């Protein structure tokens, strides 16, 4: 099997040396370059064509997140794995939106680091469990909750039956209300969710995981 060729950007001298040492004669990873700053990252990556870029976040001069933005313009297909000390939500999010494929904490054991490098190389998106939870948390808070739409309990009930595939008639029977009342609820739901069809209501409920 061919080794995965890695280029590393990190301002910490010892960290760079230690990765060179641990990956010397390694079975699947080869470090082909180590750099103290990322100012020339695009040029370096273009000329050395690594399989994976390992990028620190907190560096003087050009920080890792800005470096990712630049790299994604010049070499969009080379995956970047962020490496950092901090489990910091803002940095994680910025790195991901800048185009990083994954994220690993420096405190992770080397076996985990190898795994993460392999994963980004083969198209995956590795996050350490803590980070994964945070990123997920971010996207969950991004999608509006039921409360934000100010839906009434009865309206929620209607939506729940819709998601289950019931017709207006069946819903009327279940809720012990008239067909017209169901239609009345639906009209209000459309307005509150800013949608124009029943399918959209169902889609929104499913997307935002209102019911499990």
């Amino acid at each position, binding site marked *: 099997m061919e080794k995965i060729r890695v280029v590393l950007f990190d*301002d910490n*001298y010892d960290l760079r040396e*230690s990765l060179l040492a*641990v990956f010397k004669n390694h079975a699947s990873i080869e470090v082909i370059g180590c750099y103290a*700053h990322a100012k020339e990252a695009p040029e370096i990556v273009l000329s050395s064509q690594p399989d994976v870029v390992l990028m620190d976040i*907190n560096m003087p001069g050009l920080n890792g997140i800005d470096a990712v933005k630049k790299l994604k313009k010049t070499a969009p297909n080379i995956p970047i794995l962020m490496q950092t000390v*901090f489990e910091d939500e803002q940095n994680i999010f910025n790195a991901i939106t800048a185009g990083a494929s994954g994220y690993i904490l*420096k405190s992770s054991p080397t076996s985990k680091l190898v795994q993460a490098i392999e994963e980004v190389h083969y198209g995956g998106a590795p996050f350490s469990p803590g980070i994964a939870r945070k990123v997920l948390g971010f996207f969950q808070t991004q999608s509006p909750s039921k409360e934000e739409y100010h839906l009434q309990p009865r309206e929620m009930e209607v939506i729940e039956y819709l998601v289950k595939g019931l017709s207006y008639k069946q819903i009327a029977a279940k809720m012990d209300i008239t067909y017209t009342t169901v239609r009345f609820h639906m009209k209000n739901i459309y307005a509150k969710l800013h949608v124009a069809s029943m399918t959209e209501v169902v889609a929104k409920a499913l997307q935002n995981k209102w019911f499990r």
Partner: protein
Amino acid sequence: MLAYFMYKRKRKLELVMKLEQTRNAISRDLHDDIGSSLSSITRFSEALQNTADDQESVKNLSRKIQNISSDMNSKMSDIVWSLNTEDESTEPLLERLQNYCALTLAPIDVDYDIQFSEASTQVKISPHVMKDIYLILKEAINNSLKHSGASLIQVQASVSNQQLCLTVQDNGRGFAQHHLPTLGGKGLESMQQRALKIQGVFSMESEPQKGCRVRFVFRYRIN
């Protein structure tokens, strides 16, 4: 009267917030520095386990681990010092530098001379910046100590045009200027990076047999 109290309160709040920001910046630095170094110890130890039968590599790697951990110890103490420094002048810097030289240079009979001009001790700098300046100077002294064979190291601080200028000069063996890019090494790199971080200008000049001079210029703000 009321306006005066309001002003006082606002001023106090600003001070508290500034202090808080400084503390955050320093603790972030601490975390980043120490976290990265700890990570390198982990990696080196694993490399050590994989080279157990090669005596030379074992020695080499364990020496690295030893150096990193002792480095971390002294860095921690420098950072804690900067956190606890309330005096926003260069006086604590001068004091700590004198202590450091007394402890490391005096016992091995390397002479040292530290001169801070009157004006330079009046300069106000934040603890955050002070820490980086101190670490640059300490690194420069260490470099001279390790590589130059100097018998005298001079440290000077002066001020001109709102710039604080610090130099560390030794009388050691020096090197040809064109060798500078290939010298590399952790010390030189860390001085350059710290300078960059606080937006200072760093330079190193030398000639064979004429010693080496590290110069660092920092533009400070006046409030």
